[in-house]
């Protein structure tokens, strides 16, 4: 698994993907946080990082599928899947290695935003007036969310050999699990099941975490959705139905 992970991560670094992803994410988020008046912390007047945590997921919906789309689709197209599958690796080694490489890259993009925390902390009046537990909870939430998005992207990539199809499918599925359930629950047909539908989506759990309360139920939700997605990819890989 580690070997697949290293190889995947190295190929991100060697092919500019890593730099583009980190660069675009930080530029985009940086502009939203500090420059554009509509979302800028400086104009907002409150010392919090809501801009990052509320807009970050939408940036991820486009960015993460772009990272994951090649993972299986490219290998399948170029035939290297055959190479990998005839090496002494289990299917789990391959799926987890690829998933962790993508996840790690997203985390690397996220880490520099910790500077924002210290900036806002210093800018607060009085200095240090920031909801630290809320920020920590939000970071945990956004990291877990990125994990789900990566696993969804891996599934999308494992069912097709076309990278564009993988990208679009992954973006759509990420959107669906992120806020789709929330939107569906607003339909006036669920009567008492509204809350249940809402709880199926990420947004419900993500908002709970961003309040700073790391509830085990929310964490279990994130982990189990991610695990389910990876199980699906592994099953698709084992079926070798291409």
């Amino acid at each position, binding site marked *: 698994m580690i070997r697949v992970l290293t190889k995947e991560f190295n190929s991100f670094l060697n092919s500019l993907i890593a730099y583009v992803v980190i660069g675009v994410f930080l530029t985009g988020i940086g502009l939203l946080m500090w420059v554009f008046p509509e979302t800028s912390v400086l104009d907002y007047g409150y010392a919090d990082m809501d801009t990052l945590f509320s807009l970050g997921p939408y940036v991820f919906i486009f960015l993460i599928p772009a990272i994951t789309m090649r993972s299986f689709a490219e290998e399948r197209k170029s*035939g290297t899947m*055959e190479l990998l599958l005839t090496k*002494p690796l289990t299917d789990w080694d391959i799926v987890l290695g690829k998933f962790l490489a993508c996840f790690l890259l997203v985390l690397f993009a996220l880490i520099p935003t910790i500077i924002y925390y210290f900036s806002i902390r210093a800018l607060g009046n009085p200095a240090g007036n920031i909801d630290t537990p809320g920020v920590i909870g939000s970071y945990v939430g956004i990291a877990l969310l990125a994990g789900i998005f990566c696993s969804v992207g891996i599934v999308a990539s494992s069912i097709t050999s076309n990278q564009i199809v993988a990208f679009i499918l992954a973006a759509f599925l990420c959107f669906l699990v992120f806020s789709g359930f929330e939107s569906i629950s607003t339909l006036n047909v669920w009567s008492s099941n509204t809350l249940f539908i809402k709880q199926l989506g990420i947004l419900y759990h993500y908002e709970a975490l961003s309040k700073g309360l790391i509830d085990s139920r929310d964490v279990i939700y994130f982990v189990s959705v991610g695990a389910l997605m990876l199980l699906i990819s592994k099953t698709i890989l084992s079926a*070798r139905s291409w």
Partner: protein
Amino acid sequence: MRVVDKARKGSLQNMSLVVKNLLKQYGSQKAVNNISFQVEAGEIVGFLGPNGAGKSTTMKIATGYVPPTSGEVSVAGFDVTAQPLEVKKVTGYLPEHNPLYTDMFVHEYLQFIGKLYGMTGKHLKERVAEMVDLCGLTVEQNKKIETLSKGYRQRVGLAQALIHNPKVLILDEPTTGLDPNQILEIRSLIKNISKNKTVIFSTHIMQEVSALCDRVIVINKGELVADDSLSNLMRSQGKQVSLIAEFEGVVTEAQLSGIEGVEKVVKLEQSKFRIYPKTGVDVRPEVFRFAADRKLSLLGLRQEEGSLENIFRELTAKQEA
């Protein structure tokens, strides 16, 4: 007709590859239909058949890439479905189109593959250097794979299949698409490395088989049509040796058929005949005497060995009839 050497038996422990009643079905199409054969340790076996005969499918099953529909395949004593990891550890595989991570450097690629087989540190470095040397990649070793020519890519493919010193080497059409010089180089490379290894390679070029190995397995349309040594195959095909005789004067087929040891006579042109002798009989002296007795001039007498192509064509055509 099946030409199966029944005398070839040995203990199962000694077998590098055992295929038993292998069946692979894609939908209603049988890619491999009930094939059984065994390969002993240390043998080089040519796997022969026209395109789409099921060679690649059989190899893919033996390497654990594709699961069989039914039947058993074991490599070096490990079953491919029950112990896939063990099988993959002891086999080196060069897939048909030689897929490579083209964005990697040759060295980097070989190291990656070596690591997948659990090699580390100094041992890995030594092995990579050894492979670069063995496969003639010394000049190209610091280039990106995408910049290499087809022949060199094939060498990289071979190097990755060999890096862990596998007991069984499975090569799927290792020389396709190469120019004649490269074909010779790759062949001699295979010959070199095949010492104390079991090598199974597929091809549809007959010369390759005679150049590399003495045992041939021929499959056609998913069926095993021959499994024998090359010389046995030539002999058992019987009519492989023939004489072309040309006379001055009138000779009939019936007269020639009367010669002792002649099996069949075919008229090619006016007084030019192809004579098939009975197996193992040299009828040339008899034909000469025949001409002398009748005061005919013998203009030409030429013996023709059955070509490998003919055997191949005959074996693979029979299924269609």
